[in-house]
């Protein structure tokens, strides 16, 4: 496994005085990205803004394509919470779905998610 580490956006940016939450994306090959996320943005948007591999997001965040699947790290899964029924139904169109899998367009960044770890899959259906 290539455990190359890229800390892409570890800066001192602050919004309204509050530090920006950090999100750690780990790609299927082990590549790790630590990025800062805007509160209120989705994890999918955060991934796209930071060129994280493995997120396609074909529908642009409408919860209709299931190509922004992530596996939430087990320690974080209870904090992130389960998918809504609409999202759960959409997970039927994703592959290798695990109990901790979520669509990243449906996870909104909050201060409580500072340090969140999500794993991006090798394949999103294309």
């Amino acid at each position, binding site marked *: 496994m290539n455990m190359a580490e890229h800390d892409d956006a570890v800066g001192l940016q602050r919004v309204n005085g509050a530090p920006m939450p950090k999100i750690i994306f780990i790609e299927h090959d082990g590549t790790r990205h630590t990025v800062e996320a805007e509160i209120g943005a989705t994890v999918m948007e955060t991934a796209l803004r930071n060129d994280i591999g493995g997120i396609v997001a074909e529908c642009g965040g409408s919860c209709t394509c299931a190509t922004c699947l992530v596996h939430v790290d087990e320690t974080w899964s209870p904090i992130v919470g389960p998918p809504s029924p609409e999202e759960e139904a959409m997970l*039927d*169109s994703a*592959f290798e779905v695990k109990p901790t899998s979520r669509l990243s367009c449906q996870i909104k960044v909050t201060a409580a998610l500072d340090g969140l770890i999500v794993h991006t899959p090798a394949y999103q259906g294309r």
Partner: protein
Amino acid sequence: MNETIKTDVVIIGAGPVGLFAVFELGLLDIKAHLVDILDKVGGQCAELYPEKPIYDIPGIPYITGQGLTQALMEQIKPFKPTFHLGEMVTTVEKTGEAAFRVGTDAGKTFECKAVVVAAGGGSFQPKRPPIDGIEAYEEKSVFYAVRKMEHFRDKRLLVVGGGDSALDWTLNLQPIARRLTLVHRRNEFRGAPDSVNKMRALVASGGMDLKIGQVTALEGADGMLAAATVKGADGSLSRVECDAMLPFFGLTMRLGPVAQWGVKMENELIPVDTAAFESNIPGLFAIGDINTYPGKLKLILSGFHEAALMAQKAYRYVYPDKKLVFQYTTSSTSLQKKLGVA
């Protein structure tokens, strides 16, 4: 079937931008046929977000994907476009000065004066499950669509998925299959409740099997399936003998055959000029999400603008000897007659 259709312009893609191109071309007396791989018009608006809101259509503060599609269909009605739905354009050849031949996978051939590629993110095609070696079975014993039901008579079938396609084909094929097994990742189905009830009744009466899990491996030889491995939610593996598998995981956009038409491409997009949105091949235009140019934004409204300018240039290929006079729909009686309002 080998039908040749003569028309002015073939529009590839019946999404919002392809539909609006009919309007802009129609105002200039240019007739159009549209081809789309989906069985409905609207493109991504219909397939990905029919019920989702769009907030940035000029003059329309809020509209859904379906609403916009319906409004565009109403707007282009006076121009009586012909739709070829559920078909994919496979070939585009330039055969002369302002002459193209366009072929579809349904065997249709068009002869036209200009081609407008409004193919968005490409063609919607079925998602392929990530199972090692699945490609070898495709079109032999793994199918993403049912063309002939008879093909599945007396076979042991594995249908995979939890939506309406999976349920409908389960119910349609169960009576003729030797044995049908439906595989789904959870014991809940998002398909129509009536179909779910019918499927559950068949399972209860022993008419078919339902397995909860995900297909992880295939066995077989020469493209013919012998069995599939299903991994349950608890991690247990089971083997299901089968002759054919039908996975239904929805659609994804793939570029498709565009890359084989000889048109210049960059990162799966067609570079165009911003005066006419024409590619490196004169008479072959690209509008909407499929094109690229400095400053490009993938917005429906940008595609609409591109369609209007494209039509001005297309006019020169369709009517090389006529002079084009710019007119407004608000004041031109001639345009209003075309729209059926004068």
